[in-house]
């Protein structure tokens, strides 16, 4: 055993100051990782590297790529995939599941309220201007009753673990969360490249996600046996692979704006045998581009008059327009109170302490402690427009101090959370890299989750940014049932 360890890829593994998913503080593998650790300790980089290359080729062959337009001819790249799976014991997953269900249910109540009676604003639980003044609040949606009262059919909530291993919600993605196809493809490619890793592990399957999605989409229609379609901005969109993957896995058409026709207050698509009505549209197009009549008039990827069809109850839009107001980074601070307000329950999941630029006291704190905080733009995502204080130069800190002073409502700050780390394959063997977790939550006849999610990993040493646009990769995520309880 010792001999093997000496040559193992774990030889140079040095824990960094944060929660390590695989090892406890003494460097002993946690029980649910014991088997994986054993397996990986016995493998050499000569055995590992070819599999990694096969996996990469597999992604390329399947066309799971995004295009970087640096030169005239676009270069296609794959999102890096790390072959070491992230493992969660069932008990841990159950807690997350309950917490996420509670959170999504409450956020949906919140959306319904702010687009109807606005009780929560009148009761002063959430500042009115944070909602009504948000560029993501759609006045067009006021008074519209979405089918079955559901706004956020599909959510991808970002979770992180702090130094004590406590799960915290980092962000609610309520608009068009992407990445679920990676959750599924990572598993498929993992199975083909490293089947031996699954030996003796009771990994729960994720493959049924498209079926669950279809079930939900069919449920949220107002007609029997609805025609469902997925709306994509087109083949140049970086998530086109996912759009086509989901449409194909559900057996529903993948439509583009040019396929859609609004006639007689109904939505149709052009087929070889004339127009066919669409009853449920899973749209992967942002609100702004959904309907040039109602929103941005220069959009060519939506359907003119779609919002009116929706208002008339003749199509279900998934997710509903206007949900962005509830995943605003400053509103995030109020989600625990939103849960208490609608459910009279304590939130099951923790949040990260958040300071709002718009709040005088908070702003002073931000300006005084900027070099120790993460500062984020309220309406930006993908890891853009943010400052990580401890990693930033004095000049960058000054720039953000000025930004916060000039547009306080546009910024929030949070303490730097040392995201948990996970062994990850690098050129120097296995090394700890920071990760997060994005489970996908479906809201139809009930709120359901597929056991697993997308684990994103910051491949750059020391980096806390897991976004794919900023050098992040992903891992397969295993929820494992405890053998003894089965």
């Amino acid at each position, binding site marked *: 055993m010792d001999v093997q360890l000496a040559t193992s890829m774990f030889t140079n593994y040095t824990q960094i100051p944060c929660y390590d998913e695989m090892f406890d503080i003494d460097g002993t593998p946690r029980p649910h990782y014991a088997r994986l650790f054993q397996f990986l300790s016995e493998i050499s980089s000569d055995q590992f590297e070819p599999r990694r290359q096969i996996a990469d080729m597999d992604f*390329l*062959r*399947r*066309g799971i790529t995004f295009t970087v337009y640096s030169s005239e*001819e676009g270069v296609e790249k794959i999102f890096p995939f790390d072959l070491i799976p992230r493992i969660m014991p069932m008990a841990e997953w159950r807690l997350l599941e309950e917490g996420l269900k509670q959170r999504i249910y409450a956020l949906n109540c919140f959306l319904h309220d702010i687009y109807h009676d606005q009780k929560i604003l009148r009761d002063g639980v959430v500042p009115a201007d944070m909602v009504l003044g948000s560029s993501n609040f759609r006045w067009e949606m006021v008074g519209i009753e979405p089918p079955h009262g559901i706004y956020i059919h599909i959510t991808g909530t970002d979770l992180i673990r702090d130094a004590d291993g406590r799960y915290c919600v980092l962000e609610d993605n309520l608009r068009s969360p992407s990445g679920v196809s990676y959750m599924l493809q990572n598993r498929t490619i993992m199975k083909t490249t490293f089947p031996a890793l699954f030996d003796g592990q009771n990994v729960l399957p994720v493959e049924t996600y498209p079926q669950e999605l279809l079930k939900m989409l069919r449920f949220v229609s107002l007609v029997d*046996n609805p*025609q469902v379609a997925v709306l994509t901005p087109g*083949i140049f969109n970086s998530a*086109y692979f996912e759009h*086509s993957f989901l*449409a*194909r896995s559900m*057996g*529903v*058409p*993948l*439509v*583009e704006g*040019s*396929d859609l*026709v609004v*006639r007689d207050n109904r939505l149709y*698509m*052009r*087929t*070889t*045998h*004339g*127009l*066919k009505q669409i009853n449920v549209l899973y749209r992967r197009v942002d609100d702004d581009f959904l309907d040039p009549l109602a929103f941005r008039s220069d959009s060519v990827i939506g359907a003119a008059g779609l919002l009116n069809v929706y208002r008339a109850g003749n199509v279900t839009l998934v997710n509903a327009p206007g949900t962005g107001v509830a995943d605003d980074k400053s509103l995030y601070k109020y989600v625990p109170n939103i849960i208490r307000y609608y459910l009279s329950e304590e939130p099951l999941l923790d949040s990260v302490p958040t300071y709002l630029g718009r709040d005088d006291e908070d702003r002073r704190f931000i300006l005084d402690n900027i070099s120790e905080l993460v500062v984020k733009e309220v309406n930006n995502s993908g890891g853009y427009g943010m400052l990580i204080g401890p990693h930033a130069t004095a000049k960058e800190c000054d720039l953000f101090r000025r930004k916060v002073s000039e547009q306080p409502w546009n910024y929030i700050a949070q303490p730097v959370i040392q995201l948990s780390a996970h062994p990850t394959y690098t050129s120097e063997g296995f090394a700890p890299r920071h990760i997060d977790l994005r489970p996908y939550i479906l809201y139809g006849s009930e709120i359901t989750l597929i056991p697993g999610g997308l684990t994103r990993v910051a491949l750059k040493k020391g980096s806390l940014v897991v976004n794919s646009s900023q050098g992040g990769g992903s891992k397969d995520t295993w929820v494992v049932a405890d053998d003894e309880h089965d």
Partner: protein
Amino acid sequence: MTNTINQDTTMLLSRVASSCFWLSRYRERAEFTARLLDIQLITLLDTRSGSEYNDWIPLLRINGCLDLLQKDGRAITKEAVLHCLCLDTQNPNSIMSCLRNARENSRQAREQISSEMWEQVNSMYHDLAHLSRSELIANVHPTLQNVKNGALLLQGMADQTMMHGEAWQFIRLGRFIERANTTCRLLAVRSAPDHNDDEPYREAMYWMTVLKSASCIEAYHKTYAAPVARNSTIEFLLFNPESPRSILYCLEHAMDALNYISGSAGRRFHNEADRVLGQMATRIQYLRLDDIDLIQFLDELNACLYDVSDLVMQTYCSYEVA
């Protein structure tokens, strides 16, 4: 809970139908170009005309890239021709352009075609996209073999992994329209009046190359059991009812696909596309070589195929909704 039949299986988006049709045409065109070039390279090994220009001109005419190559004033050398026919993205009919277009159309039709097909067309694209000019010249035969075989594999996958519904019929239609079209161009260029060789062995060699380019020299031998000659070659390529490369065969099968799509039982046309193709397919059934002025007929055929392709698009894809 009982599962209801998905209505979608009987329904095809217009844009996707068009992509199925075109991905298939580009697949066929890539296969044809690879074969044409491969055969010519092999033939030239022992039948050089002494002028590189004369060796390559017919090929460039068939491919339709003669003007492109001459426009730049480039010398017509083997290397230039190889690059133009294989890798040049300026040439819309180069193998690279065909594979790229086949792939982009496959992407659009991703919800209809099988994953095997997508991965195949994607792999073919990446294989060629990563090939440099010098690598191509060093490995030209294996490269062309790979394209041919890859394209045939893709065709086989379409037949064996897709539902044989409307989308598949559009793929079939595209394949046969394109093949009729390429055979027509091959014949038009190769039987042009400027070709005249008094040497009988050269004449036989010439028409053997034509048959090989259409991948049917063995079928020809089976049919005629006689030396290769001009008239029987042309007759074979136009009228043979059993060769999957003959114009007659292509038009009959294209008609069959079109009948499936329009839902007609083939007894009467449903739309202009049906009618125009049906007229030509029926006419060719009862023609003999003696009945026609070959060049004029090939012109008519070419125009007809162009019209049919256009009419199919108008009828099923870019129609006006009322």
